[in-house]
């Protein structure tokens, strides 16, 4: 377990837990990009994060910020600020932080799975999709250079039970946004308030190239269901995905040509891979032999 040498991964903000995971006076050890860290919330409420050696000696101190219900740190010097999710300011939204779930997979595979729609009828049968309504109609996907994010919109898919608050099957609109290589959000039709979007997000903490902890969260309009019910629904969906995520070979996402075949429905993923290649990201990718 050694710290990565990939500058693109190092010089970026990464999640290391929920805000509520860090209690005063209870240091937590964790790992980021192969590097062991210790994080502790002090009596005054501030969180301090340090890189530590394998023997536990304190090394470099890392910058920290608490945002979007989670704690963020970096092993390097990010060139830009942490991304923004303005909907966090909307007070009538219900925020649910699902907590971290380990996946023996590359964090990039987890993000790609989040962006994928074609698997809904097969992995999330009778919830997010079912046969024979398997078609993914053409949609738009692009790299937005001004904000340095990948966006996909004009996506529509028939879902039997799109959200816990949904009653009956119908066509659901989607938009996807990848804010950084290991962090992404989606916007989908809100059953309770059709003029708004419900938001589901995924922050992946890359522990190792083949191991990550995934923090899912929701920012939704839902006056009916409890936080627990919402977490259970999301966990069920994610555990269905884990079956796939832990069975993909190679573990890392191959960014080189010819390794994997894509079809029209994979537009978002293809833009995502192109964007990662432009950045020169290595961590979580498969290297061509």
């Amino acid at each position, binding site marked *: 377990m050694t710290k990565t040498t990939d500058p693109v991964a190092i010089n970026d903000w990464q999640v290391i837990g929920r805000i509520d995971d860090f209690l005063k006076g209870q240091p937590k050890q964790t790992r980021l990009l192969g590097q062991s860290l210790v994080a502790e919330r002090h009596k005054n409420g501030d969180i301090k994060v340090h890189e530590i050696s394998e023997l536990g000696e304190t090394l470099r101190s890392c910058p920290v910020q608490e945002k979007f219900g989670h704690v963020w740190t970096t092993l390097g010097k990010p060139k830009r600020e942490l991304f923004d999710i303005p909907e966090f300011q909307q007070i009538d939204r219900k925020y649910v932080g699902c907590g971290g779930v380990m996946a023996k997979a590359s964090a990039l595979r987890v993000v790609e799975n989040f962006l994928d729609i074609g698997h809904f009828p097969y992995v999330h049968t009778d919830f997010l999709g079912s046969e024979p309504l398997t078609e993914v109609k053409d949609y738009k996907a692009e790299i937005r250079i001004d904000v340095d994010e990948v966006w996909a919109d004009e996506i529509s898919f028939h879902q039997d039970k799109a959200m816990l608050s949904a009653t009956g099957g119908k066509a659901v609109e989607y938009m996807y946004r990848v804010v950084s290589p290991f962090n992404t959000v989606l916007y989908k039709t809100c059953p309770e308030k059709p003029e708004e979007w419900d938001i589901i997000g995924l922050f992946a903490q890359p522990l190792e190239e083949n191991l990550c902890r995934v923090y899912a969260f929701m920012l939704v309009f839902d006056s009916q269901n409890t936080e627990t019910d919402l977490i259970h629904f999301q966990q069920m969906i994610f555990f269905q995905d884990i079956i796939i995520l832990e069975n993909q*070979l190679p573990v890392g996402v191959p960014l080189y040509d010819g390794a994997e075949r894509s079809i029209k429905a994979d537009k978002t993923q293809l833009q995502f891979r192109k964007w990662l290649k432009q950045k020169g990201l290595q961590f979580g990718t498969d290297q061509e032999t």
Partner: protein
Amino acid sequence: MIQKPVLPKNWVAVGFSQDLEKGQINIVIIEELELVIWRDHKGQVHAWDNRCPHRGTRLSLGFVRGNQLACLYHGWQFGGDGQCVYTPSIPDSTPPKSLKAHTHRCVELLGLIWVAPLDFEHKDIKGLESHLRDSMDFQPVRSMIIHCSAENIFNRLASIPFPPSRIMSRRLRSISNMRLIQETESVFLWEDDENRTLASYQFREIQPGFFQFNCESEGTADVLLFALQKIDSQKTALHLLLAPENWSSDPISLKLAYAQWSKKLRNQLEQIF
């Protein structure tokens, strides 16, 4: 950078035909290469890389529908030749030829399933049958995994005979002054004081990883076939077949005797190496 594993350039036995039913899917590993082996509803066996060409999902998690294998992730359907014939997310289009599983040659012979690379330049596997006498009726005894390298298994079997009790009976073993002689590199004889052969044990390699053993004593002659499947440098699968001189009225006892013998053999191999 790890070298990706490839199939060796010879036929490798990966299991018994009877252990793979129609519609069933198994995983086998040959020299660290993971393969999906599946039987369609026509009865045909297929051996492919256990990796969907789309996003690398293990095809072994999928399901057999008729004569096609469908991947669990996006429901892509593949025909017996490995060609993708349907992608549910774009149902009205024919998938391009480039959407193909990585396939290998796969045939059944002697009750075993054999795999070889597609580009393997060698005479057809039927040639194997010519090495064996027509009158022999080989039946599967068992498959087992041995924590020992394939090379060590071969060396051990070739140098230290381990006769089964059917051949080296208690009565024979009690004969004093019985000597073990290695007559040739591959022939072992047990003789008594007067140089009479009491039992013999002969092996020969039919092709890499596939051996025939002839064991004889007091009118009993058994022929064993060992098919070794190298899983990795420290683990080997062994598929054992038996053809006694005649299958008596109790074939199950015969197979059981050899299954138990093979367990003892495994214990020996795992201790020494």
